């Protein structure tokens, strides 16, 4: 960092410029470098050694002598249909989970916005509060509810709705439920922020002018809240694609999600180059939605007063 003699606020910022070097170096070392290493290993050959991959750069006496890369790990990913299926399955699980989350979150955000200010605060707080409690433990809590002899089955049997317990745990249903439950606040908050800015009087005017309530909602409210819908959906979708904890605890053996496969590839198969290639492809898959989200956020910030 240069010293700040040039401009922007004079000497007061000089020490800030110096101080920021520290977190800057920290991020270069502990965020950027690791990612470059993963990229590097994804092009390396697996070997039986510690660490179990070949060196990528070869250093001779004259210094750098060559770059040793192999595309085999990537070729393996694409030829072996297994990974293609898992990526698609993860996108599908995350996509359906996101839609379910929207179907529940939208009415909730819509309801909260229409409450008087004081009640609005309390309802919003109630949405956020669970977030401060351990994610792992909240996902765990569902095991006790969804079990064959769990609370929900016991209840349904006792009131005579069913004779035999429903299989609700260790399958895709449980994973969808876990996604909706865990990410619901991420859906509600941007929707709420968006709906709050809308002129609700406009909607009431539409209703007064003879539009039926449902029609006014579909024709006026929904189109106006599209930025909130996209924001909320991306906030749920992006982390859901790489989710590990939910499929690991609630999913069945046949629930294929990339986060879990990556974990197994690393901890069980110990194939680090393939695990790295799987990671790089996952990041590439997420680049588009992430950029979309950032663009959306920038536009929202410009639109905000």
């Amino acid at each position, binding site marked *: 960092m240069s010293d700040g003699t040039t401009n922007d606020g004079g000497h007061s910022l000089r020490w800030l410029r110096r101080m920021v070097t520290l977190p800057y170096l920290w*991020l270069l070392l502990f965020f950027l470098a690791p990612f470059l290493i993963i990229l590097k290993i994804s092009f390396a050959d697996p070997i039986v050694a510690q660490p179990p991959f070949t060196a990528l750069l070869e250093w001779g006496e004259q210094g750098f002598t060559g770059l040793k890369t192999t595309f085999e790990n990537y070729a393996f990913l694409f030829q072996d249909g297994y990974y293609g299926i898992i990526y698609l399955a993860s996108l599908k699980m995350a996509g359906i989970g996101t839609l379910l989350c929207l179907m*529940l979150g939208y009415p909730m955000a819509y309801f909260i916005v229409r409450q008087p200010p004081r009640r609005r605060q309390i309802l919003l707080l109630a949405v956020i509060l669970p977030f401060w409690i351990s994610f792992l433990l909240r996902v765990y809590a569902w095991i006790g509810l969804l079990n064959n002899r769990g609370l929900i089955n016991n209840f349904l049997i006792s009131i005579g709705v069913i004779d035999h317990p429903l299989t609700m745990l260790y399958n895709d249903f449980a994973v969808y439920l876990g996604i909706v439950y865990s990410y619901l606040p991420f859906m509600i908050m941007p929707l709420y922020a968006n709906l709050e800015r809308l002129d609700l009087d406009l909607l009431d005017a539409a209703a007064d002018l003879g539009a039926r309530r449902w029609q006014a909602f579909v024709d006026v409210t929904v189109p106006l809240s599209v930025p909130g819908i996209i924001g909320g959906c991306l906030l749920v979708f992006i982390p859901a694609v790489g989710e590990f904890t939910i499929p690991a605890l609630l999913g069945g053996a046949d629930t294929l999600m990339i986060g879990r496969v990556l974990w197994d590839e*690393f901890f069980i198969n110990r194939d680090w180059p393939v695990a790295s290639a799987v990671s790089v492809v996952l990041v590439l898959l997420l680049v588009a939605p992430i950029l979309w989200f950032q663009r959306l956020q920038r536009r929202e910030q410009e639109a905000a007063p």
Partner: protein
Amino acid sequence: MKRRSPMLMTIVAFGYALLYVPIVSVVIYSFNGSRLVTLWGGFSLRWYASLLADKDLLGAALLSLRIAIVSATFATALGAIVALALHRVNRLRGRLLLSGMITAPLVMPEIITGLSLLFLFISMADLIGWPASRGATTITIAHITFSMAYVVVVVRARLAAMDESLEEAAMDLGGRPVAVFFDITVPMLLPALVSGWLLSFTLSLDDLVISSFVSGPGATTLPMLIFAKVRLGVTPDINAITTIIIALVVIIVVAATIISGRRGPVAARPADAGGQ
């Protein structure tokens, strides 16, 4: 204005039930005397007693607390500097790279963050001999790195809403920059710093995936221990841990909300997520 559609009310009630039923059921069953998790065997504190006797568990809890306190403190300090620099310094060298690196951890899948950091630690050990072994230190470094990103979001939101004329006035009156910073800027930022610290603390205390990758033999954090246990199904002592954690969280959040006023730390968490 206030129309109440029964369908809307049903969906909203279902949504709130979804958020709270799991938590409430765990709390109730933590006082269950029966070993069978689904049968009610009368009120009992036996699971709490068994927690106190579990040395592994107490050790893991202490380790997690230690890591959370240290990493939250570093993350808050480093994150605040980044937020201030991004907000105040116009011609910051490498601003684009910095703001990219500080937002990326928010969206990076945890599993990749964990894997990549592990590779870094292995490469470093190979190259410079440090870290010789992985454990509490490497976990703390990992937690500082991702928590920083959250702190920056919270502090930047506060900076954007802050009135800077007070600092300018102090500066005009001849206050030294460092003195102005600690006497005026820091107190004004305090609510955001508290929020950022609490957020980092809870994120660290909760982290399973990244810790699992960067930990080594002998360093088992509480989430790692819990995960190993619950993978096999419901265990009553985990219900008791959950209840204790919920009680702690409620106390801390309520206290922090009271201390820092209406826009307290509770409101900060979705702000980081919602980016609003």
